[in-house]
């Protein structure tokens, strides 16, 4: 095989001789699913940005009324959760499935923290009479964050399954597919929020 023909399947910056073995973590299907999800979120983000370009004053004024602390705390919770999942995956790779379980439980706790903060944020906004119909900004704010929120809920269900399996000692270097697949989905939920937070809560 020539260097050119297999270039797409090599890691960046690796010379063809001396290249390490390559592997996509988890199930191939989850990666296509993640790509589809990223595309949908991407379209949503760009639509928000261009809607804002036509209503800059409105977006800036209503953004100023958002709770940025809640947004930042939720970013920190998702990052911590992702980190804990990485540690769990590393333990599973080392053949210590049961030791990975508490780390997954920690990740679930952070995810539940995200849910609690988000619900509290929604409750306050709804109390102020904000709805999908109240403005273009709020239409985007509610639908974008709620769409993401639904992904957090699904991610938590997946983490719950990983926790049960890890506790029963199911994962190990010879059985990583499930935990890597679930972990990849959870990191996607985190990745999307890393753009959502500066876009909706900070950019002005």
């Amino acid at each position, binding site marked *: 095989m020539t260097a050119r023909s297999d270039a797409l399947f090599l890691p960046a910056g690796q010379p063809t001789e001396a290249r390490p073995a390559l592997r996509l973590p988890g199930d191939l299907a989850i990666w296509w699913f993640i790509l589809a999800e990223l595309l949908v979120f*991407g379209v949503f983000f760009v639509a928000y940005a261009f809607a804002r370009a036509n209503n800059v004053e409105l977006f800036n004024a209503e953004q100023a009324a958002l709770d940025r602390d809640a947004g930042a705390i939720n970013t920190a919770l998702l990052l911590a959760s992702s980190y804990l999942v*990485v540690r769990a995956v590393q333990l599973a790779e080392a053949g210590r499935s049961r030791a990975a379980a508490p780390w997954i439980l920690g990740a679930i706790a952070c995810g539940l923290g995200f849910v609690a903060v988000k619900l509290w944020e929604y409750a306050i906004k709804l109390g102020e009479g904000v709805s999908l119909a109240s403005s273009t900004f709020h239409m985007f704010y509610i639908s974008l964050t709620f769409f993401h929120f639904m992904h957090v809920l699904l991610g938590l269900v997946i983490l719950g399954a990983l926790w049960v399996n890890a506790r029963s000692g199911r994962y190990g270097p010879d059985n990583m597919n499930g935990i890597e697949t679930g972990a990849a989905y959870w990191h996607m939920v985190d*990745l999307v929020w890393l753009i959502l937070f*500066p876009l909706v809560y900070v950019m002005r």
Partner: protein
Amino acid sequence: MTNSHSTSTHLPAHGTPRRATAIWVALMAATLFTWAVGERGDAGPLVVTVLFALAFAKGTFVILDFMGLRQAPRLWPLLTLGWMALVCAAIGLAYWKGLPT
């Protein structure tokens, strides 16, 4: 990177705990910075460029290290990093379009 099962064909893709911790600390610091920018109400093209350059950098670590795509076939980091670059660039373009003329 070592494997407890020397006979295993599994290739670890998620680095060491030490590296993961260092990355996590950096991601948290970057988040604190973004929050501070928001609290100060800083605005303008330079601020927005910094915000999304930082978001891109954070996302790169999540993709390559947390998702474990650093040692994946090159197509996958290209697609995911490319998605992020494209989205950040489009947001920048929209921001520029909304600037007062």
